[in-house]
């Protein structure tokens, strides 16, 4: 008897202690925009980004009477999940486009963006990315699009001029052929949805219908896109990074294993490892369905129901202002998410103007809740694309993506 009671008592104590550990603390005054202590979690590209964000946050903190602690995450997704599960999410954080749908569906995010005073200034494609169930949820902080990056030295050596810059698939095939040598692949990009999907869009394909109810993966347009990738590879002018011993196509470009790659503005990161590689970014060629590229973006996420949300929204307003976004662009090269600031950026950094210009017709990769596992599966199946059955890959994608979409729409 005695021992049983004691055991039960101990279990109860343990349970209470455990539950107490799960609940979150904090006695801040709700809704106040001064005197708050904010924590910001960012997925930083390096010291330049971290210190620029910290400097901007400090500037806002000083003028508004708050304090902001900027934490650079080593694994942003995991640290965010931990924070939310423990009831102590950061007060403001980087939210990637790929995770946005899942976070919005699970009601992690405060839909503050629709009420922002500068909500109308952002690119429409970026607002669409961060719109969940017709509500513009969080403010985009920057964007990147994919372009064709050309090694200019090899371009000249092959006797090509500006007039040869490809504007359609036929042009791409012919310059890739001219640039291909025994040691250099004419074209290289990763064999994944985030690159191959661009060809599908250029052929006029999409993955989800305009009303967001039907998956349109298994279509002749998408098949044409995949067939083009197969053709380039069969011709021997396209090599995937792993085939030319590179981690990603930027590395292949840097060390001269590929003459052209499909990457975004982050390509400038190869400067550290390969300072002698000269390159130029141009818009991607159009396919039979017109011009298309992908736009990748992050937003400033604010957790739902946080006591500090009023102050955090104020901080977002400050961070997404044109002046501040241009400062970030100077510090670590991101492209501003508002149209006016992006135009200014394009004149200031003409080498990246093509990335800004292509955002006018760019589409966002599919990102509804639960689509990530399907895309991972699609990427795995793409490994069999060369010499494989492109139609079967799309048919499988059609089934799995439709199942995921139905589940997402039922919630």
């Amino acid at each position, binding site marked *: 008897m*005695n*021992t049983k009671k*004691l*055991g039960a008592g*101990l*279990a109860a*104590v*343990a*349970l209470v*202690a*455990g*539950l107490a550990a*799960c*609940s979150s603390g904090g006695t801040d005054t709700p809704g106040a925009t001064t005197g708050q202590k904010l924590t910001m979690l960012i997925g930083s590209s390096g010291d330049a980004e971290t210190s620029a964000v910290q400097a901007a946050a400090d500037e806002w903190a000083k003028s508004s009477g708050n304090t902001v602690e900027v934490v650079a995450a080593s694994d942003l*997704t*995991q640290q965010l*999940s931990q924070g*939310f*599960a423990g*009831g102590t999410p950061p007060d403001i954080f980087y939210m990637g486009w790929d*995770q946005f749908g*899942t*976070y919005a569906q*699970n*009601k*992690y995010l405060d839909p503050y963006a629709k009420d922002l005073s500068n909500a109308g200034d952002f690119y429409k494609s970026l607002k669409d990315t961060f719109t969940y169930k017709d509500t513009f949820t969080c403010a985009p902080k920057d964007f990147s699009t994919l372009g064709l990056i050309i090694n200019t030295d090899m371009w000249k050596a092959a006797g090509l001029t500006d007039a040869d810059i490809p504007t359609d698939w036929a042009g791409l095939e012919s310059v890739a052929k001219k640039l291909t040598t025994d040691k250099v692949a004419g074209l290289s990009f990763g064999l994944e949805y985030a690159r191959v999907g661009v060809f599908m869009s250029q052929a006029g394909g999409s993955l989800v219908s305009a009303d967001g109810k039907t998956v349109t993966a298994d279509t002749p347009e998408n098949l044409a896109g995949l067939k083009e990738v197969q053709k380039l590879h069969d011709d021997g002018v396209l090599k995937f990074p*792993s*085939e030319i*011993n590179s981690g990603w196509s930027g590395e292949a470009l840097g060390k001269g294993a590929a003459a052209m790659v499909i990457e975004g503005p982050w390509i400038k990161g190869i400067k550290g490892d390969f300072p002698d590689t000269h390159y130029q970014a141009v818009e991607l060629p159009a396919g039979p369905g017109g011009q298309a590229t992908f736009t990748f973006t992050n937003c400033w996420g604010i957790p739902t129901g946080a006591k500090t949300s009023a102050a955090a929204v104020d901080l977002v307003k400050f961070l997404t202002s044109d002046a501040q976004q241009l400062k970030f662009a100077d510090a670590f090269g991101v492209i501003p998410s508002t149209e006016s600031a992006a135009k200014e950026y394009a004149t200031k950094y003409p080498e990246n103007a093509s990335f800004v210009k292509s955002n006018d017709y760019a589409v966002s990769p599919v990102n509804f809740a*639960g689509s*990530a*596992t*399907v895309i*991972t*599966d699609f*990427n*795995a*199946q793409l*490994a*069999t694309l060369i010499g494989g059955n492109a139609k079967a890959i799309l048919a499988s994608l059609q089934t*799995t993506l439709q*199942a*995921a979409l139905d589940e997402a729409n039922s919630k």
Partner: protein
Amino acid sequence: MAKGIRGGEAGRGWLFISPALVIIGLFLVLPILLAVWVSFSDWNGLGSPLSGNTSFVGTKNYEKLLVDPGLSQRDFGTSIRNNFYYVILVVPLQTALALFLAVQVNRRILKARGFFRTAFYFPSVTSSIAITGIFIFLFSASGAINALLGWLGINGPNWLADPRGIFHNFVELFGVHSAPTALAAGGPLGISWWEWLAGPSVAMCMLIVLAIFTTSGTFMLIFLAGLQSIGAEIDEAALMDGTGPFRKFFSITLPMLKPTLFTVITLGLIGTWQLFDQVYLTGGGAPGKTLLTPAYLSYETSFKGLNWGQGAAMAFLLFLLIVALTLLQRYILRDRHKGEKLDKEMQRQIALHASVTKGGTS
């Protein structure tokens, strides 16, 4: 109740073990119970799983993994297949290698035994992340391994980017390129028999070599301890009976090492089914999901898909699998011949001896 000199001992006993109980309860039992609850719930990782916005969904999470056809089931099936081939190759090979190394460094005539013991044990004390990093370099398309194979005239594969199963590669030599109709469909967990029989991918082979290299040192140490507890007199007795080294190893050393062998295989089984670090570092299942393991899939489902219920269900299925396999292994390695070993003559003598002593005392 009579309170003697030992009265209240029980209460004090509980008091003394209470710190341990609290710690185990708080950090082991409670989280496990909570995980059981999560695996039966639709918790989405927002706030506590015991709060109001989480509801009981019955066995839905388990059904999605085991019964309902779909991507969840197929992913789980793929991860089980991958890990199965990993276990089936790593456990026997690492055990055999560890035993071989232990016997070698246990020999008295070996010079610089200390050096060899340290050298073989060294990979075990190095962090698995560091070793995986080195292996990724060694096995890259133009890495040291392929350079070595190149000297031998072999064109090495692009190890880490090769999703082809080695059994599939093998039957391709005989002209079988796609699934025969008998194997094209069916199969448990949404995977066709053809896919089940793919064997480990070329990329997985790298992880298998890596695991054998790193863990055999640890198990060598355990075997070494076992070997040293075998008395020298047994060795001498075997020598007097004229056994050769092979007979001695298989008839004396190995049977006497049986408890150690059991420990090593059990630890090996548990460890290999929980493969995670290497998968995390090599790109989360790439190439072609052939490196996906249940432990990594559980992490990804929970932390990235925010589908914590399914992730927890996966963890429990993995737990059940490990328990089942450990029990099976225990059954196979049980002492089958207890009492039968003594031959007739010996039994007769014992009986005679017993009756003599009995007769002597009565």
